[in-house]
């Protein structure tokens, strides 16, 4: 999909931003809770408050941030740090790839900013909205704003609350927030029999891949296997099947 973006780009409006922010609003408690657990873990690992806060504000990628804590005590962990962040965040490649065609219609400046906020929830919401005809890049930016504010805010709250919080998260069932949320995102994507094989294989690879693969690569392996099955079954279908 090559759309000329030279003269006038696709819309980037406040209304679009608002609808994105409203869409992510219900799950900001989820994100903030996850951010809190990072704040608690970072303090536990000996990171000063400013470092943990700055990391959440500039990196905004939970898995990679947790993994970085493991390396933080080394004097100069550059190579493992780069490789770990690359591996855990390589799923972002898939997010960018699925949004790429849609993003080309917008101006480079808004596109560069929007790319910075592509993450699991903002991507999932935007991808779903595009299917329903969303044409405004403000939507992704709105999702990203909600994500950033709740992630950074949660981190700060976690640093402030410290260990006090860690036990309560389990007692109140808040540890289930994140994965039940991703499970609910799957529901509208169920496509009947075509979904059975890729989903089961992806789940098995994700669960058992952790025993043999480095941190974060189980998701990549699961996506590759699921994608491969999707590609193979797509060629068997009639050409006009959507």
């Amino acid at each position, binding site marked *: 999909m090559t759309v000329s973006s030279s003269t006038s780009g696709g819309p980037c409006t406040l209304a679009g931003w608002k609808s994105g922010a409203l869409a992510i609003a219900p799950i900001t408690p989820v994100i903030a809770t996850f951010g809190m657990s990072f704040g608690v873990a970072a303090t536990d690992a000996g990171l000063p408050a400013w470092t943990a806060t700055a990391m959440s504000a500039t990196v905004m990628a939970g898995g990679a*941030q947790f993994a970085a804590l493991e390396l933080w005590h080394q*004097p100069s962990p550059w190579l493992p740090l*780069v490789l770990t962040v690359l591996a855990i*965040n390589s799923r972002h490649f898939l997010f*960018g790839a699925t949004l*790429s065609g849609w993003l080309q219609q917008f101006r480079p400046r808004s596109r560069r900013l929007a790319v910075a906020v592509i993450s699991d929830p903002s991507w999932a919401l935007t991808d779903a909205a595009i299917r329903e005809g969303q044409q405004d890049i403000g939507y992704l930016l709105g999702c990203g704003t909600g994500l950033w504010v709740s992630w950074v805010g949660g981190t700060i709250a976690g640093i402030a609350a410290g260990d006090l919080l860690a036990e309560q998260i389990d007692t109140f069932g808040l540890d289930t927030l994140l994965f039940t949320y991703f499970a*609910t995102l799957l529901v509208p994507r169920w496509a009947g029999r075509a979904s059975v094989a*890729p989903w089961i294989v992806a789940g098995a690879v994700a669960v058992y891949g952790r025993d043999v693969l480095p941190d974060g690569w189980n998701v990549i392996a699961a996506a590759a296997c699921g994608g491969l099955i999707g590609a193979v079954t797509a060629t068997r279908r009639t050409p006009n099947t959507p």
Partner: protein
Amino acid sequence: MTSTAAIGALIVMATVTYLTRLSGVWALKNTTPSTRLTATLDAITASVLVAIAAPAAYDGDPAARMATVVAVIVMATTRKPLLAVSTAVIFTAAIRAL
């Protein structure tokens, strides 16, 4: 890690992460997605969601596993993510309190 090293590490992490976000957008920039590519990306999308949710549910206690089922059932019937997730959380807390 010293403060200088910490700033360096933050810059490295932020830059690498931004590049991972940009890479997919670049890679498919001038491609017209075919039916097969669309189906592949759809399958990849769902697989990533499965791959994030499944290990956490698998590792969780029985309450957490049941909560996943509850969330899916509520979502399937109501299509409201907030309702689904909050029902699942309240369910987990109730089971653990027993």
